């Protein structure tokens, strides 16, 4: 059936031509051989022509992908020696301060990797730095996407995939952190155990289910290992595939600029220059990680000693991306004015305790993570904007979103900083208690202040943009006029820059819309209230009329016959 349609497409001679084609060079022969069997030409033609816009902030996603690949490669190396077993053994490796000490096989083999396997310590450090960079790159990539509004229609679902990837990254990191079975990771697990047990009614069961009995047991590390090397990486790989597929489907967003519209993508095709650049960038990332892994010690697990539930060491912290959980636990007081927040519900079997100080920390965690997932819908609900967007926002041009994002960032920073409250105290000669009190104040006041300040800064920057468009940049040249007046020269911005400065939307407040019954519901009222916080204060972009008016001032003449056309064209005529 399909042969008919094919016949209409190609003639018999064209087919035989392909069959008889004889490449001249050796490389050509190999390429032709492969192409005839897997059809590489089609793929190269399709993907090689995919156009990507050029901006350095678009590369954080790439960094995340590359550091993930590097982490997988170095992790595969580690699995050849690491034995995730909690069975007891005596260390007899080459690290003297632990010789003869009783420990688990997991810790023993982790030490063996560090001291007795050639290149093992480097690979361990590379793996760990790679993990830190992976999550960092994802976080910055998401911040870029958030503040430029790249999550808007049609990319909402890809934003959700990205959020899931971030969560999977946290999971991968935490399960890896817990594997070596030294005091540091054991303490981390104990905190997770405590958080699980704080969940009312089912908490203890969940904890027993995870640890295979009472903490720590001897099953948790093999289980975490399965999660760490198999399940979570598989999830990440699948999600990366979905994520990239959607990027190709949606096409890449671009910053505003001359010639860039909602219907095109201005940039370079992947092949050959971008492919070479991206391939090269993989090795740049590899180089940076190798530099870190080769010169900076990370997770010196030989210092911590084998896990023992009794000691907790000073400077016990999780890796940076789990820090905010730890920080929240530190911020939350156990007592307020001598009244314990933990209480017991009396029951016939002796009472169930409710660990409020731990439970309360779930509120900001859930708020932040859930908010991250649903933000695209929240924003379009507030703004009422349901259109597609392929041109990115400059953060200053959407003061509401930028201010809200910064507020949430500061909120996160406060929780994150709280995880290092002890080191802040020692290194800045402060009282540990004062640091915590200030962070508690900032936990509530920080986001509010940040929202107000950021919004004002955004509006100020927009006014500055208007100023630059209408009056030009200060040239730093002072002129004295014949009658003695001093004046600073201004230079007009280029057409290219002008386009970026004036081409944005500044929507106003949208009024409440009554529903089908003709009533304004409570939900709609709250939407309007948020809409007002978003759009009440705004700066209009420079209009054509204003610009022409400004140009005429420049000249001190009559704006007699400024021709129609783009603002840029007017500018070029004048100069």
């Amino acid at each position, binding site marked *: 059936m399909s042969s008919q349609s094919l016949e209409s497409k190609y003639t018999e001679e064209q087919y035989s031509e392909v069959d008889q084609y004889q490449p001249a060079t050796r490389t050509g022969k190999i390429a032709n051989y492969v192409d005839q069997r897997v059809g590489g030409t089609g793929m190269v033609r399709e993907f090689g022509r995919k156009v990507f816009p*050029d*901006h*350095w902030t*678009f*590369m*954080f996603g790439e*960094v995340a992908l590359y550091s993930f690949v590097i982490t997988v490669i170095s992790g595969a190396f580690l699995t050849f020696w690491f034995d995730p077993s909690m069975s007891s053994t005596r260390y007899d490796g080459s690290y*003297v*301060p*632990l*010789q*003869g*000490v009783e420990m688990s096989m997991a810790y023993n083999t982790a030490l063996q990797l*560090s*001291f007795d396997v050639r290149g093992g*310590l480097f690979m361990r*450090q590379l793996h760990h*730095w790679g993990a*830190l*960079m992976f999550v*960092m*790159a994802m976080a*910055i990539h998401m911040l870029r996407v958030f503040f430029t509004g790249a999550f808007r229609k049609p990319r909402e679902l890809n934003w959700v995939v990205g959020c899931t990837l971030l969560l999977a990254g946290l999971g991968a990191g935490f399960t890896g952190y817990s594997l070596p079975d030294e*005091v*540091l990771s054991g303490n981390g697990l104990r905190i997770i155990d405590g958080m699980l047990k704080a969940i009312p009614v089912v908490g203890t069961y969940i904890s027993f289910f995870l640890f295979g009995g009472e903490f720590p047991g001897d099953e948790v590390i093999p289980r975490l290992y399965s999660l760490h090397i198999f399940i979570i990486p598989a999830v990440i790989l699948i999600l990366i595939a979905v994520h990239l597929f959607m990027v190709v489907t949606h096409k890449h967003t671009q910053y505003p600029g001359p010639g860039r519209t909602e219907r095109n993508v201005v940039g370079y095709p992947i092949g050959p220059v971008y492919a070479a*650049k991206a391939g*090269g*960038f993989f090795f740049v990332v590899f180089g*940076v990680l190798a*530099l*870190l892994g080769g*010169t*900076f*010690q990370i*997770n*010196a697990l*030989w*210092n*911590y*000693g084998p896990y023992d539930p*009794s*000691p*907790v*060491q*000073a*400077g016990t*912290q*999780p*890796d*940076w991306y789990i*820090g905010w959980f730890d920080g929240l636990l530190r911020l939350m007081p156990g007592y307020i004015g001598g009244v314990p927040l933990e209480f017991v519900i009396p029951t016939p079997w002796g009472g169930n305790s409710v660990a409020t100080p731990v439970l309360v920390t779930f509120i900001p965690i859930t708020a932040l993570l859930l908010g991250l997932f649903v933000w695209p819908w929240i924003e379009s609900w507030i703004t009422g904007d349901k259109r597609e967007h392929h041109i990115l926002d400059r953060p200053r041009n959407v003061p509401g979103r930028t201010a809200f994002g910064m507020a949430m960032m500061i909120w996160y920073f406060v929780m994150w900083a709280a*995880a*290092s*409250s002890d*080191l802040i*105290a*020692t290194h800045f000669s402060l*009282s*540990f208690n*004062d640091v915590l009190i200030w962070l508690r104040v900032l936990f509530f006041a920080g986001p509010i202040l940040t929202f107000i300040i950021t919004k004002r800064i955004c509006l100020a920057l927009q006014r500055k943009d208007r100023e630059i468009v209408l009056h030009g940049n200060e040239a730093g040249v002072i002129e004295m006029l014949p009658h003695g007046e001093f004046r600073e020269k201004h230079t007009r911005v280029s057409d290219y820059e002008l386009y970026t400065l004036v081409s944005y939307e500044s929507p106003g407040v949208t009024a409440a819309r009554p529903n089908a019954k003709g009533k304004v519901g409570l939900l709609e009222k709250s939407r309007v209230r948020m809409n007002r916080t978003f759009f009440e204060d705004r700066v209009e972009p420079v209009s054509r009329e204003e610009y022409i008016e400004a140009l005429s001032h420049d000249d001190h003449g009559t704006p007699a016959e400024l021709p129609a056309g783009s603002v840029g064209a007017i500018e070029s005529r004048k100069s």
Partner: protein
Amino acid sequence: MKALSQKRRHPLAAVALLLLGLLLTGGLYAAATSINEAQATNAADAYSASDVEEGERLFVANCATCHGINAEGSDAGPSLIGSGAASVDFQVGTGRMPMQMSGPQAQKKPAQFNDEQTMQLSAYVASLGSGPAVADEEYLDVEQGNIARGGELFRINCAMCHNAAAAGGALTEGKYAPALDGVESRHIYSAMVTGPQNMPEFNDSNIPPEDKRDIIAFLKNNESQGVPGGFSLGSLGPVSEGLLIWTLGLALLIGSMVWLTSRSS
């Protein structure tokens, strides 16, 4: 015997028995602790009378303002009677005393007295009442110490404040456990015996002198073995590692990104 059995129902018999029991336990406890004290003060005789005399002169001139003219203490400083030579050796030898300023705890600084003066001050305070003495050389010889056992003891007893790599850590209200890098063996020993500042006291029945030697051996080995993985980043754990990836790591990445996307115009 008959008299005793007759009087056993006497109203005061229970009281007498209780007194007897208390006397017995109290006596035994006193005997047991004095054995410890005897071990601790075995070096007190090493000081000559002239050392004590010279120490007193130094004390009156430099320490009495806070600790009282007879070391009996005042509002500004505690009594030193019974503090022992080890305490003076640590506080004065590490420069913590005389104290530079009042605050949450005395800061380490260059020692204000030379070794001889420190010894004379120790002699004076030791002469006021029995207290822990400066460690015997035998217990400072790290060659005889067991590093692995010292490590275990360190992690159980010390690492919660001083950090697993002895890099120090925070305590409440501006107090802190200092880093132990570069601290002299005898000062580590004295600190364990006397519990200076906010440190608990680890006497000889808690951690015997041989175990203290193991701990010192472990710490000295940590100092000399170097950092296996490169720069230690202060041995502070994940916080300094996170800081490095967000500063140096991110800077290197952004630098290469800007370079890769810059146009060759």
